């Protein structure tokens, strides 16, 4: 079993906001929020978005099947593949739905098992839908509620969990106000998503005050990307793309075959677009003290994009408006950080390049997450030197956030798995393509449901609430 002698800081893990989050909406705002972003357990999987019944992923994410709370100890993607192809009992579904996604005390238990000492906790569903709320006041109320809820969530286990706030960008003054409010509460990180939802791509003049405020407050801004397409089918009402990830999803949704999940590249593309703009426009020189990170988007693509940006910087010297002296790559590598995940061979091979800029992200409890033991094993196998490993898994993030690293977990524990848990042989057998064919899976399995959900339930489900 793996051992470690340094604190692992997980800079991007998630909660899945429970129904009680709406209890944090100020009483005076509840009627308004109910019209713009609301869900009840009784109406799952539907909720209200901008006055219209919308199929949220939320209910699914709150169950293990759609991936929001499934990746806890032992539930690797390979294991999920086996379980999704079975008819599971309610008890088995319940096992896969990790309480830690909404209960901090349950989370700590999982953190110990997964080798994670400290964690930055980021919302899921609000991060997905907040940008599409059409009423700025409602967005403000929702953001405040989620930020207050996640603050209380993290306060339950001080020193191990740290909250990340979301901001209502619909009206930048509200975002500024919320940034100040959360900074006073002790938040160190705010998240923004680089998408053009409702035309609100965060590079516009209207956001200058927000960027200045974040810089002045000393907050870290995490550019947190997300899937696009299958998770927010409503999209922009004017029909314009809000995310490059939508083009990935479109491949599957236009063929009547199984889906092509946008998650494969949506995170990466949203981040690429933002980094290209931020480095080529002189944004980082405009805000020289801004501490920016890229979350949720892997890191292996970064060298190629920065190379391309450097090329453009040189080739367009007499055309570009940005007259700063730093190459785009220099600006990013000096001023920013980027999270990496366990499945990144290129990052491990280039540990000298990434040693000072990479911070680790588990993405727990989302279905594609990994634990610390896995990334440590992979880094060791790739020959990443110990000192670099500690930087990438711990001190880079701690220094960025101003958090003292604290070691709680030193040894990988044996997991106490139920007897129905897939065996290694079953996991290996499930790799076969035929194992998950719609024609071969039992009708009650998640595999069977997923195809139906995505083809029938989500498409064209918007309707008016009467």
């Amino acid at each position, binding site marked *: 079993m793996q051992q470690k002698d340094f604190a692992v800081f997980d800079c991007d893990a998630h909660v899945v906001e429970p129904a009680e989050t709406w209890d944090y909406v100020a009483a005076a705002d509840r009627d308004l929020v109910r019209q713009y972003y609301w869900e009840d357990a009784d109406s799952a999987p539907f909720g209200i978005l901008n006055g219209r019944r919308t199929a949220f992923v939320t209910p699914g994410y709150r169950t293990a099947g759609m991936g929001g709370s499934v990746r806890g100890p032992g539930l690797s993607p390979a294991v999920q593949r086996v379980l999704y192809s079975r008819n599971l009992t309610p008890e088995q579904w319940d096992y896969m739905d990790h309480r830690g996604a909404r209960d901090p005390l349950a989370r700590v238990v999982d953190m110990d098992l997964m080798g994670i000492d400290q964690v930055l906790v980021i919302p899921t569903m609000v991060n997905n839908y907040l940008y599409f709320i059409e009423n700025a006041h409602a967005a403000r109320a929702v953001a405040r509620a989620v930020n207050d809820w996640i603050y209380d969530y993290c306060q339950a286990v001080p020193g191990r969990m740290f909250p990340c706030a979301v901001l209502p960008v619909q009206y930048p003054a509200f975002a500024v106000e919320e940034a100040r409010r959360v900074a006073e509460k002790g938040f160190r990180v705010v998240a923004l998503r680089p998408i053009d939802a409702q035309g609100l791509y965060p590079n516009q003049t209207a956001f200058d005050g927000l960027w200045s405020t974040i810089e002045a407050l000393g907050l870290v801004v995490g550019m947190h990307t997300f899937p696009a397409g299958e998770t927010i089918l409503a999209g922009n009402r004017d029909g314009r793309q809000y995310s490059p990830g939508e083009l990935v999803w479109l491949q599957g949704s236009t063929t009547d075959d199984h889906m092509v999940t946008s998650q494969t590249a949506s995170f990466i593309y949203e981040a690429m677009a933002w980094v290209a*703009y931020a480095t*080529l426009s002189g944004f980082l020189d405009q805000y020289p003290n801004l501490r920016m990170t890229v979350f949720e988007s892997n890191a292996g693509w970064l060298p190629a994009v920065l190379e391309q940006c450097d090329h453009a910087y040189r080739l367009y010297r007499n055309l570009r408006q940005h007259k700063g002296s730093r190459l785009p790559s220099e600006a990013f590598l000096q001023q920013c950080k980027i999270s990496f995940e366990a499945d990144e061979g290129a990052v491990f091979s280039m540990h000298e390049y990434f040693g000072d800029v990479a911070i680790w992200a588990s993405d727990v409890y989302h279905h594609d997450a990994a634990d610390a033991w896995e990334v440590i094993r992979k880094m060791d196998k790739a020959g990443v030197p110990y000192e670099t490993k500690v930087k990438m898994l711990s001190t880079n993030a701690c220094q960025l956030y101003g958090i003292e690293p604290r070691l709680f977990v030193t040894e990988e524990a044996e997991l106490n798995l139920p007897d129905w848990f897939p065996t290694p042989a079953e996991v290996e057998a499930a790799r076969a393509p035929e194992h998950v064919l719609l024609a071969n899976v039992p009708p009650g399995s998640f595999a069977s449901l997923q195809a139906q959900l995505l083809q029938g339930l989500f498409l064209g489900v918007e309707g008016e609430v009467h």
Partner: protein
Amino acid sequence: MATTPDSSPLVLDFDSHVLEPDEIWTDYLEERFQAAARDVFWKEEAPGCGTEIVLNGAVVPRHRPDWIDRAGSWRPGRSWDETGALDPRAAAVPCAGARDGRARLADLDAAGIAAQVVFPTYFGEYFFVARNPGVAEALARAYNRWIVDFCSADPARLLPAAVLPLQSVNASIREARRAAEAGIRVVTLRPMYFERTRFLNHPYFDPLWTELERLDLVAAVHPYPGSTNPDWSSHGPFLERVAGKGALPIGHAIAEVVAPIMDASTFLIGQLFYAFLDRHPSLRMVILHSKASWLPLILEKIEGYLTITVGTTIPVRIDAEEVFYGHGSIGIGFDADEQVLHAMPDLFSRVAVWGSRYPNHDAMAAGEAVERLRAAKVPEEAISDLMHHNGARLLGVGVPTPAGSRP
């Protein structure tokens, strides 16, 4: 590694370009299509006026006041910094080799290139967006006849890549067959959406892929910036739109910086999600002009998400790395300054092929490319694979050896 008498390596350049002259439209396009083509896709140069493109009934706007034709501005000996120092208000003369095969051969010699595959520029960036399938087929025929003539300056060293009118799969198949009969080995496919519903993985295109495999042509998946593409057709328009909103204007197009990477990887994701490479085990395919660094990460992501994609309609292998690297006749274009490639030469030396991008403004000479690889301590055997053997194997033909060269 095979070398010339002065020990320069014999280099196969898998990605170079032409600047298409007006005569393709005025002389090579059949007269009966010319009136319609003036609306569908037409190019005209006029002294003092620059190049005007008409596409789908409207003039394609120039994004910014940049009179340097960057698609043709490089020539041997010109550095990127020298290009950056050019006056954008003064129209720079494109390099002669962009349009003249004989002049191009001199540039190949100066750049240390034994042979190169030649791709379109305007027929890449604009043609695929044209909306009239019948006219598109005629235009493709015209371009393909012209490129064969262009490359006739030395058919052993200038290898034409045909364009296919992807607006229609039937027309594409017809043109692929015609190109094969004309001796063309490579066809150009742009990874973008047609009519917002058909990407290259759509079943609509299955007959084309089957035919390309049967004809043993090399399917070159070549993205283009797409700065003026319509929304939802490729990644370029989104990038330009959001960059254009920015409080800090960039001053030049941004799509060329990252859109090709996005378009190319979107293509590969769709193909692997639908078991494309397993369904076409003999297809020769190369992904170009989008760097290679993204490949390991995207394959990792594909494998990860295929693992949890259940309820599939066709059997799909989840071991994406094995599917890709094990295919045997697949390649990906790289740039010599890619640090990820430098760090993982063993991986890339299996599949990567070099492209100069001649005469685009970001082109690089072969000698400089080899120097960069050597400076990055890429082993000589890997350099030989990257700069020569992988490309030759994909083409399935021998690379011509200049007189006096050593094998």
